[in-house]
């Protein structure tokens, strides 16, 4: 995601969700979100057919 500032995203979302992210652990949160973002990209880039819906109750 070119131009995406993870640090800024963390700040804004934390504000929206009223989460307490103190200075001393902000770097750890940013690092974790960067990792999640990279992993999520694997799934987000996969072309799932449109007729696959999310079920409210998952059944194996």
């Amino acid at each position, binding site marked *: 995601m070119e131009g995406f500032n993870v640090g800024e995203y963390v700040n804004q979302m934390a504000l929206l969700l009223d989460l*307490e992210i103190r200075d001393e652990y902000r770097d750890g949160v940013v690092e974790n*979100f960067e*990792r*999640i973002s990279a992993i*999520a990209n694997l*799934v987000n880039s996969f072309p*799932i057919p449109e007729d696959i819906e999310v*079920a409210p109750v*998952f059944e194996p």
Partner: protein
Amino acid sequence: MNDAVSIATAVREGKVSAVEVTKAAIARIAAQDNQLNCFTAVTAETALTDAARIDREIAQGNHPGILAGVPFAVKNLFDITGLTTLAGSKINAENPAASQDATAVAKLKQAGAVLVGALNMDEYAYGFVTENSHYGATHNPHDLQRVAGGSSGGSAAAVAAGLVPLTLGSDTNGSIRVPAALCGVFGLKPTYSRLSRAGVALFSSSFDHIGPFARSVQDIATVFDALQGEDDRDPICTKRPPELVLPQLKQDISDIRIAIAADYFTKGAEPEALAAVQKVADALNITEYVTIPEAHRARAAAFVITASEGANLHLDKLRRQSPPKVSRPQDFDSATRDRFLAGALIPSSWYLQAQRFRKWYRDRVREVFQNVDVILAPTTPISAPLIGQQIMILDGEEILVRPHLGLFTQPLSFIGLPVLSVPIQRQNALPLGVQLIAAPYKEALILRVAAALEVKGVVSAPIV
């Protein structure tokens, strides 16, 4: 007399009393747990009271249950009447004691088993190593310098060391199978929703399973059967009637189609992990391979869902709050807290995409199971790492130890498949595990295959 079924038989026949068995377990815990750190609480007093009741029932000619007098313990996220459920957290230590047992605990007690305590785990079950910053690391009985695996590390190590023959744990992304493999015992993750989670602290609701650890297939089957059944206390628990596996254990397995997981499940592991799978395949004369498509993406989607659902459950403790309520981020293990905070920030579109992928992936895996009944795969990519070890080298690449212990377990719990990790003991080396994987509700198939492997002497779980 190390296994649960033998103990129960001896107790029922009056060869040994439940009180004697319980006292022996308590003595073993007292002697060894200061080194292992499996237990967070030992319920000696109530255990001896319960054991005495079992003995009285036997004296009166009553049947005290299939697990009569068998000592057991549970991961400390199961509610135990009179004990505070910690879930590995310092914050929960301030909570009141549970007013009733988790359904699984109650069912084992009804079967005559005697609860002797609660077991150590990763904080909120978020981890694969049981290096709990509040309650200390659980040590692997095979080598005290090494981790027991997680997050049900106390449950696996207690069985491996022979402190108790049976324990319960929970598995979200591999938390039963990983410690079972690293400690060299059997660990069953049943089909999602098959066993009641009532009274169990959740981590990631749509992935959480409970299941047993033991040193024999028969013990695993006995506990699984005792735990089956509908439960009004757990809305996700299946309405499906119990299908007992114990009577099926000795059935011939020549009709079961077995294959080795290829591609994803053969990469990123040390050669001995793959050799363990080959050992099982050789014993079963298996040469077929099968591909589970997009397993790497399934693991990624599981990661996104776990991070999101896990964070959501703990939002209240991470939010700014006005007095008298206070937020508690400083009281989490720092690694857990940072992951939860990051998980709370995941956009809904990522979460929903992962859930949609989950259905797509489930349908593809259902197709695989049209041609095969049981699939073999390594449980972990390596044997037990050292306590504190951060990095391992696999395929020439430096990678983090902690998340990658679940490399081969996550894509299977992602769609709730039943999986048994069977222990492969190795001379002068740490044990490893092999996963036996089946389609949903086909626990009987994997337990039958495991029983055949046990008879052949390929899998075993002797006391360390």
